[in-house]
């Protein structure tokens, strides 16, 4: 692997940048692998990386039906935080957040993790109760979260309108200072580069069309648009398409995909210093390094794989943004896009073994998948390598829906984003 640094950049500049090599090998499928990861997004690439790096496995492939990181990795609003309500959730996201904090060095790839802080703004007495519960619960779990008064909220994020005379006044906010944003593409590319360097085959434009199993039911490989590939274990990390892939092994998932839209403004000079989320009025905003305001809109209600939704959804979000930050009313939407979120009934993910031996799944991340990327990848790798979950992801099974042991972040009003 070519080391990335200011020095290597300068040296390559002398050579007019002709010396750079591909950041990852584009591989053709071999007949057989120990482990195949289905899905070349951040989670899948990261899982392959950790399998190779931490579990000493080498004969690994990542198969991706399109181009690398072209799904939700490329379509999210890059918010990273771990201030979830339930201990199971916050432990999982905190595991990810800790990995984020060292990820640039780990991968020798600047993922631009920027711990700008995330404000969850309260507009009602009920919001205050819920967010304070978050603060106390997080602190008990060793996760930073603090309560700010409206004035403190304004001091932390000056463009916010904290006038008491607006329709839903700001009553305060929960602040996680270690939260922030990262560069979404860089995470996937960084994992791909590092995994490739450890011998992982990254196979693009290779769609899985079937899962092969032996008479005992154990997986033996996959059928793909580039031919059959044998595998000892298969880890599916295909976001919304996980249902489609697991159906090939006869497994139904508690999963429904919905369009999720997001948008950016035209770039402007630095004007918004942190991440702000308002669940009550559905506004999620931060400013990218380029200067664009990155805004998450709501989820369309229906099942769809089209990667587009109705314009009324982002319009509703922009109404909220204009109330929360009235100075931004004259900014303009530059680009909007839709992704496919894979949602479980309790809005918590699944990172688990399945009922089919050798088949593992990591899905159901809804709107929270990006922030979990290194954590989910790390624990999914653990689960595949050891054929048992890590204690952190042990509660995130498929069976919890049968047993009634849900981790209901949605119902707990911690609308994930």
């Amino acid at each position, binding site marked *: 692997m070519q080391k990335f640094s200011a020095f290597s950049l300068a040296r390559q*500049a002398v050579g007019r940048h002709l010396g750079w090599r591909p950041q*990852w090998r584009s591989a053709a499928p071999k007949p057989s692998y120990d482990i195949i990861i289905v899905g070349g997004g951040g989670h899948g690439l990261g899982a392959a990386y950790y399998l190779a790096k931490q579990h000493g496995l080498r004969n690994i492939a990542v198969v991706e039906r399109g181009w690398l990181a*072209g799904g939700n990795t490329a379509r999210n609003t890059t918010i990273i935080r771990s201030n979830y309500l339930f201990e199971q959730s916050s432990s999982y996201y905190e595991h990810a957040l800790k990995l984020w904090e060292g990820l640039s060095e780990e991968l020798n790839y600047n993922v631009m993790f920027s711990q700008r802080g995330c404000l969850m703004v309260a507009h009602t007495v009920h919001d205050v109760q819920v967010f304070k519960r978050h603060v106390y619960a997080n*602190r008990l779990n060793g996760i930073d979260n603090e309560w700010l008064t409206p004035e403190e909220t304004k001091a932390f994020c000056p463009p916010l309108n904290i006038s008491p005379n607006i329709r839903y006044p700001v009553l305060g906010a929960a602040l996680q200072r270690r939260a922030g944003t990262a560069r979404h593409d860089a995470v996937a590319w960084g994992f791909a580069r590092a995994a490739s360097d450890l011998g992982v085959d990254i196979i693009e434009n290779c769609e899985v069309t079937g899962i092969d199993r032996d008479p005992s039911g154990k997986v033996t490989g996959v059928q793909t648009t580039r031919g059959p590939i044998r595998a000892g274990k298969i880890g599916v990390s295909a976001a919304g398409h996980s249902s489609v892939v697991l159906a090939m092994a006869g497994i139904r998932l508690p999963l429904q995909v919905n369009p999720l839209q997001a948008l950016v403004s035209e770039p402007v*000079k630095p004007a918004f210093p942190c991440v702000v989320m308002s669940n009550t009025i559905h506004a999620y905003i931060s400013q990218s390094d380029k200067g664009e305001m990155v805004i998450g809109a709501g989820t369309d209600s229906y099942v769809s794989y089209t990667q587009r939704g109705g314009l009324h959804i982002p*319009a509703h979000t922009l109404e909220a943004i204009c109330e929360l930050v009235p100075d931004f009313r004259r900014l303009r939407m530059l*680009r909007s896009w839709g992704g496919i979120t894979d949602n479980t009934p309790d809005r918590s993910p699944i990172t688990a073994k399945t009922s089919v031996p050798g088949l593992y799944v990591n899905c159901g991340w809804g709107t929270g998948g990006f922030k979990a990327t290194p954590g989910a990848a790390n624990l999914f790798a653990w689960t595949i390598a050891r054929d048992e979950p890590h204690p952190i992801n042990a509660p995130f099974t498929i069976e919890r829906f049968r047993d*009634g042991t849900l981790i*209901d972040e949605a119902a707990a009003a911690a609308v994930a984003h």
Partner: protein
Amino acid sequence: MSGAFRLAGRGRIDTTRPVVFRFDGRMVRGYAGDTVASALLAEGRHLMGRSFKYHRPRGPVSAGSDEPNALIGVGEGGRYTPNLRATQVEIHDGMVAVSQNRAPSLRFDIGALNTLAAPLLPAGFYYKTFMWPRGFWDKVYEPLIRRAAGLGRAPTEPDPDHYALHYAHCDVLVAGGGPAGLAAALAAGQAGARVILCDENAEFGGSLLADTYSLIDGLPGGEWVARIVAELERLPNVQLLTRCSAFNYGPHNMVALNQRLADHLATPPAHMPRERIWQVRAREVVLAAGALERVLVFEGNDRPGIMLASAARTYLHRYGVACGRKAVVVTADDAAYRVALDLAEAGVKIAAIADLRSTPGGPLVEAVRARGIEILPATTIQRAHGHLRVTGAELAPVGADGGVGKGRTVSCDLVLMSGGFTPSLHLHSQARGALRFDDALGVYLPGESIERVRSAGSCRGMFALDDVLRDGVAAGLAATGGKSGPEWAVTRQDAPGTGGFAGALPRRGPGHLALAFVDFQNDVTAKDVKLAVREGFRSIEHVKRYTTTGMATDQGKGSNVNALAIVSNVLGRRPEEIGLTTYRPPYTPVTFGAFAGHARGDQFDPLRLPPMDAWARAQGAVFEDVGLWRRARYFPRVGEDMAAAVARECRAVRAAAGIFDASTLGKIEVAGPDAAEFMNRFYVNVWTKLGVGKCRYGLVCRDSGFVYDDGVVGRIAADRFHVTTTTGGAAGVLNMMEDYLQTEWADLDVWLTSITEEWAVIALQGPRARDILAPLVDGLDISAGAMPHMTLREGSIGGVPMRLFRVSFTGELGYEINVPSSQAQAVWDRVWQAGASLGLTPYGTEAMHVLRAEKGYLIVGQETDGTMTPADVGCGWAVSKVKPDFIGKRALALPAMYAPDRLQMVGVLTDDPRTMLEEGMQLVTAAETPIPTSAEGHVTSSYFSPALGRSIAIAMVKGGRGRMGAALYALRLDGPALKVTLVDPVFYDPEGARLNG
């Protein structure tokens, strides 16, 4: 004439109406009809902006909405708007415009030093560096990068303008009002269809407005356009919208348009919205979006004074502006020859035409030759010279082998480039239309779509004017099923251009240091694109993301095809194998405020006020938002804070009586012969045995077994229940009822009606409640014996119909007086007067919460969080053991639902009665707890209880009901943990004597 480059007698500007505006503080004179760009160009000024990364000086490259370079800030104060295209902004008197992304000035920008560092700043450089030392990224490097990035500054004042929204429906929406669009609209309009025609420009006509050569029915372009527009205006079924861009093509032919109404006016009329978004549902859509000329990629192609040939023609014919004195034309297409002729005819010297093709020919070329203009076949432009303005072009011959020979430099102040035309496919692509690569034209063309949409004219690769008009008519007819449409004779036109070029121009030498721009605004050069490919980014989406080409505010309108061609050349693969990046809406940027439309301020969300709101306001109440409702939280007297007011209100209810507006409670009338059966299936409780005139507390679970809502239900008649829900749950419960009724239990004869707003609810609570109420009700015996707790009576109060519930959420003797909403205030006044001498006190939601907490009554949504069973919150008694089924029954039988360590509702008391817990506090077993630790539970409600003279709290604790008397510790954010004792959650009057009094 103002402006040295203005040409008398040309252009569509109104020279009788001079306009004065400011640019960077300097007065600029123009005319009505000018844009900022045309007015500045008329002064000979091309420098209008600075680029994103290298801060290169830039001038306009286009004359329309696709402009990447000439971005300006316009307006002042709350009306300041960044990043507007100078090529689009229409000037008016008093307008203030500023250049952007430069310091200290546009001519001298310190940021331009970045150009010197360009070798160190290739595509993606930031991924490779700024990693050391750890932690320096967001503290040191990122702030520096952020300050350098961004374009204009963000507004810092609220926008005073208004915006509007409008839904429209039509048979045919025509997007684009050039020749194809006008023809389509007229054909569809004459066929009787409801037609909407929109165009982003100030006037219809598109390319015809800059075409003085072609003749249609003997008329030059502009005159023909005027005739057609007049015909369209006469059709009552046609809606014409200028300054209106179709920007979003949504599912099922819902197309959004953005109409700009006010910005071009010096003093817009009062109440004129600044912009309006049209949401158009069209039966059929005709896209007549036109085509955009491609820039050429060569070293220094970004110098001010280098622009698209078609742009120069537009400035000449629409604005009467010559963009320079001496021009060099570089082209791969015939169209630029017409531009050269037009400019020459207007007095601009054409120094040379460099044609990339080896044997340009045809009538246009001959006409140019005849005029004595030098044509250099098989010639490329090696580089452009100049800094703040182009000063020369180095033209070099291209050999048969593709090698570039030594050239000569031609001095000039204007370089016009034409790489051919790229059809605008944005809306077609947004409509999920397929794209197909056309080898002959070397561009993508629209293919099949899942929507009812068709493209017409140059946006589908048709370039000859007569073809375009015929195509427009055909599209209009196809969209309406019409048989015949208008016909015109194009009596003079240029033959459609042949040739075209995409990618980086051939050059002499490797050009490793050359800055040949693909994406102007984002400063992406040809070598950046090549570097991305070298580093393994082979998908065009990857190239786009790695280099940021196509991600600037023009969204790749000018750059995508060139980037694609470069990748294609490097990889040696055909363009269609590489693909095209997805076209993302909007077509051009759209103001946030326009999306918000009327939803601003108080109208952001409906504000629902309960019937006694005005009275509460007159009493000086403090309010809180509960869903859409605004409810009185407490009624402070002079000098009282919230704690004092709430304590007083609570004491009054316990000692005398309180009055409370409970109207927001959800209410549903469940009626029909099968009403009781329905209630049995829906609620966890049993209803069959509930007598008429009796009430019962009802609990609703989901089929997951978790508590969803609760409320008192009264039986009005054998076949009629008056159901109440929580305020927030009203809509959800009714929807859930309808869901089960319509889809699971369609056999039942029972129907549901929301009566939330039919009946206002006046809660009268306290030991004196009966004394106050008894004299007011008409002939109704409400004595303890006649009307015990949990009963209801129908009757009247002062002649007003009434449903009177004897229920209590306070633990006191209490009534909820339901009266028709329109008469609620009158009844309230009567009760208020009657209670005046008996200590009747108004109370708000906060006292209501305290009083219910003293009694250990739960609030769904406060004690519960969607993961609680009835038993968890102490309501296991309500769950029927005998019913064969009800919603939630099966799930409640799961072992996990009655596990001993489930969270259970308990009371908690601090050692010090003055110490208050905070809602949300976590409970643990030891005062000194290592972090992280799992919680034993958490505090859900915490108040100071005036009745007990101490703090009280409710908590959900693991196995809590079996741990009465045990000690736990509530963690504070700072300071030592607080010891608490678990107690029964009913703090006050546990035997219920007061309730039943």
